[in-house]
């Protein structure tokens, strides 16, 4: 009996029927379906315990406290810490980005030394040795630029420069805090400046984009929110004066269009009207001030300067007079480059309204004690102007430094007239950059020292500009060890200084911060919390002073607050300085030039951070179209220049030019072109690189007479079709 065809068919048929009665086919089909749901190249989600850690944001200039979700010890998402007075649950796009930026493709992973045109990886020992040698060799010919606006890190770096004998070469990246601080000093004020929006009932923002780039933005936004229940009438009014609808303007009850860089004229015009209405001050120069503003800043003169109609200005003055707790805040529409006169004039209005050191007014807050010998105070730091120094270096009037240290700063990108400034920087003998990311400054440095990000290091946030109370909070590492071979920059500086024989009195930044915290805790302040709100304390509520272990409390994300203002004596209205600074205010603009304003949004990152990967999606196509910068004009302006939407244009400033696409929007006033800021990176990763153009390249920095403050918020550009 041989095996024939039928037998084989029988076997197969039996097998087939049998298989139907086994799970093989059904199971396999099911497993394939499940397999197709979990492609190997798509990451899996973590399954561990969800916990929260509390720290402070160092990347966001507003210094808000963070509540960070961790799973298996890894920080995943950051939200605002509801208990932190500068956050109150709010968080900016930059604060939100702190977790995933740890893994940014642009991070510097190892110390790098430039040999020829290329970087070579070196060890930390070599890097440290090299930096120490350069410190020794530089002597008094060093300079440093810090991107930190308020931290104790600045004490370390300025003390190092002091040891080298060049403390005057310590610079901060330009910010509103510096310009406002300088203005306050020139008026005879003491302490740092802050604005109590929470207790004010009428807030007039002169250019200051309070919720995006000016001062303690999150505190401002939360104060604004608390006054508006959406059910009843708002408990406070907010009026925005500026050349475009900024973030703040969108939330304001009224937007008053005003030419950029002319905030001082608005304030002085208001001052004139207030004085006419009976306002006075016991400031020694009141009579001079009265004469100055009454003659030079009548409503029609202000209209010619600013574009604000006389009746609108009168209405604004009336609003301020009628308000119980008015507050005027000056600033720049894009967080930098406003002239000193703007701050002085706005402060003068606040003085006339008797709004200094009162709830809902301007507060002068105390500085916390320094802990590094020879370090500069915040007030001292505010008087060194980086743009002035680099302009002087570029012009050959000041020799370029032999050693230039940059710390969390990207001056090659983030300064006005960027190409000229980058050239001046390139002239420095040896450039050592402490950078977390391969930014434009690091790219042209000789030595790049990879810096740990805030979530990998100890650091602190000390009274950011605009906070109406002195506030101290700590930044702590949330990761057990840094993601890459990075170190906390201040630890490296302390070690290099010691190696060069310039020991700064501490061998680690953590220890130094412990000393700082101990010193801070002696200021008689309190830990902010639910029953200890700094705003309520300013309004007169008694809060018990803190007793306990301050380091422990601050490490848990708390904020130490001193809500008692610095007493003022000899405060003036700054008449002489204002008069000298504003002498050229009436000068006619060059023909064919257009006023340039910028829109800065935290979602487009910062010079030292680039555009955070996840924030790019929130960048609007009215700012960036594909890879092109979008310049916005209103229809009337476009008509003047015979431009249509979608056309390519060239904007030219004294130091460079950029190209852009034209977009039409009535959110910009006539005679002004608005260009978004924060784009045009040539370094970093694909999320930042080659996206748009750097508007700072076409800005013009002008040194203001009498105040010495460099400003560029009143820049003009020439515009041409291409």
């Amino acid at each position, binding site marked *: 009996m041989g095996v024939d065809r039928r037998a084989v068919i029988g076997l197969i048929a039996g097998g087939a029927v049998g298989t139907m009665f086994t799970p093989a086919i059904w199971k396999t089909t099911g497993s394939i379906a499940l397999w197709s749901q979990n492609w190997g190249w798509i990451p899996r989600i973590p399954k561990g315990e969800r916990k929260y850690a509390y720290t402070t944001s160092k990347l966001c200039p507003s210094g808000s406290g963070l509540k960070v979700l961790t799973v298996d010890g890894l920080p*995943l998402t950051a939200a605002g810490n509801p208990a932190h007075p500068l956050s109150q*649950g709010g968080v900016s796009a930059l604060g939100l980005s702190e977790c*995933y930026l*740890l893994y940014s*493709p642009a991070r510097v992973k190892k110390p790098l030394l430039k040999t020829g045109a290329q970087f070579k990886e070196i060890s930390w020992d070599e890097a440290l040795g090299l930096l120490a040698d350069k410190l020794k060799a530089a002597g008094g010919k060093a300079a440093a630029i810090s991107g930190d606006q308020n931290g104790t890190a600045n004490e370390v770096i300025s003390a190092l420069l002091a040891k080298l004998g060049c403390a005057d070469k310590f610079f901060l990246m330009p910010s509103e805090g510096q310009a406002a601080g300088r203005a306050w000093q020139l008026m005879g004020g003491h302490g740092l400046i802050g604005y109590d929006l929470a207790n004010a009932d009428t807030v007039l923002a002169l250019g200051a984009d309070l919720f995006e780039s000016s001062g303690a933005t999150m505190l401002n936004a939360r104060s604004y929110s608390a006054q508006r229940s*959406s059910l009843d009438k708002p408990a406070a009014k907010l009026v925005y004066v500026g050349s475009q*609808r900024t*973030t703040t303007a969108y939330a304001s009850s009224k937007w008053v269009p005003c030419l950029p860089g002319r905030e001082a004229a608005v304030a002085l015009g208001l001052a004139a009207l207030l004085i006419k209405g009976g306002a006075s001050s016991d400031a020694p120069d009141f009579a001079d001030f009265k004469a100055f503003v009454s003659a030079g800043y009548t409503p029609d003169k202000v209209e010619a300067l600013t574009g604000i109609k006389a009746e609108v200005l009168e209405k604004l003055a009336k609003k301020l007079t009628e308000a119980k707790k008015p507050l005027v805040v000056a600033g720049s529409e894009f967080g930098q480059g406003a002239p000193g006169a703007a701050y002085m004039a706005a402060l003068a209005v606040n003085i006339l309204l008797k709004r200094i050191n009162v709830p809902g007014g301007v507060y002068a807050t105390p500085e916390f004690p320094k802990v590094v010998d020879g370090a500069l105070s915040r007030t001292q730091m505010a008087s060194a102007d980086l743009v002035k120094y680099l302009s002087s270096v570029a012009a050959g009037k000041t020799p370029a430094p032999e050693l230039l240290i940059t710390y969390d700063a990207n001056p090659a990108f983030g300064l006005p007239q960027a190409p000229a400034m980058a050239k001046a920087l390139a002239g420095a003998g040896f450039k050592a950059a402490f950078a977390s990311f391969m930014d434009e400054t690091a790219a042209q440095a000789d030595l790049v020292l990879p810096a740990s990000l805030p979530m990998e290091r100890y650091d602190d946030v000390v009274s950011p500009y605009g906070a109406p109370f002195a506030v101290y909070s700590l930044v702590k590492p949330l990761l057990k060890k840094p993601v890459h071979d990075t170190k906390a920059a201040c630890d490296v500086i302390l070690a290099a200084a010691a190696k060069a024989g310039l020991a700064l009195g501490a061998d680690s930044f953590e220890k130094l911060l412990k000393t700082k915290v101990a010193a801070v805790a002696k200021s008689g302040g309190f830990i902010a919390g639910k029953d200890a709100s700094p705003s309520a304390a300013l309004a007169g509520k008694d809060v018990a002073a803190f007793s306990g272990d301050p380091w422990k409390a601050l490490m848990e994300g708390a904020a130490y607050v001193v809500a008692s203002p610095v007493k003022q004596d000899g405060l003036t209205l700054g008449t002489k300085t204002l008069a000298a600074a504003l002498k050229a205010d009436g000068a006619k603009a060059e023909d064919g030039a257009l006023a340039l304003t910028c829109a800065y949004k935290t979602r487009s990152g910062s010079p030292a951070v680039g555009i955070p990967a996840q924030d790019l999606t929130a960048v*609007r196509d009215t700012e960036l179209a594909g890879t092109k910068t979008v310049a916005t004009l209103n*229809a009337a302006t476009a008509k003047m220049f015979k431009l249509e939407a979608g056309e390519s244009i060239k904007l030219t400033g004294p130091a460079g030019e950029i190209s852009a696409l034209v977009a039409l929007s009535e959110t910009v006033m006539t005679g002004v072109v608005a260009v978004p800021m924060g784009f045009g990176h040539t370094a970093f990763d694909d999320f930042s690189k080659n996206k748009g153009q750097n508007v700072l390249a076409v800005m013009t920095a002008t040194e203001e007479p009498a105040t010495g403050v460099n400003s560029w918020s009143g820049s003009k550009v020439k515009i041409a079709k291409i």
Partner: protein
Amino acid sequence: MSEFKEFATKWGLVVDLDKCTGCGACMISCQVENNIAPVVEASNKLRSLNWMWIFEMTNGKAFPENDAAFLPRPCMQCGKPPCVSVCPVVATDKNEEGGIVSQIYPRCIGCRYCVGACPYHARYFNWFDPIWPEGMEKAITPHASTRPRGVVEKCTLCHHRWNYAKEKARQEGKDPSALPENAYVPACVEACPTGAMYFGDLKNPKHKVHELAKSPNAFRLLEKLGTNPQVYYVSAREWVRKQGDNQLPAKEKA
């Protein structure tokens, strides 16, 4: 349109457009919370995918009479969701207390009927696999499973946060079906700096949204379509309300 259940709890979002600055914090917090991968081409809006999107509105007048506003748009969680009716595989449904419209990724066959049916453009199709920059996948969250290419996704009002809130309530011995206000709040609401967004149970008089949704300034997007959204907007500006309703000039809101 088929009939949908009425629920005892209706999670609702109310956005005060007069407080919204268009800053984008809601979009970004949503992205990171719900594991939406960053895209290098995100500045090209045809390539980006957002559960929360911000529209720009203008009254159409020339400067200086012009007025403008931003309108954040999550999924409207419609009472009568047009997307659910058209789904051939019940990958999307509205059948749970709270009224959140669900979307089950493994079940989705990618036909995109729902994308076409949604009048709010709240649904997005994954044309590409989600790829994080190398190493950044360490920062993805446990809240939402990652979605492969070929499926549709949308806002869930951070449903996982509701689950967490219920877990916490149970642990504390409280009733998980009677959560106090703010025990459950989506990521966008939590992140909003100016407090423009309110969240809660529309049917619970103890929750602020209950009253806000009844405010004379409240409106819903494309109300006339009868989709019955659970997302409300408020604005004191009439032109904003009218534009949101998208009424023809002759047909004023009743």
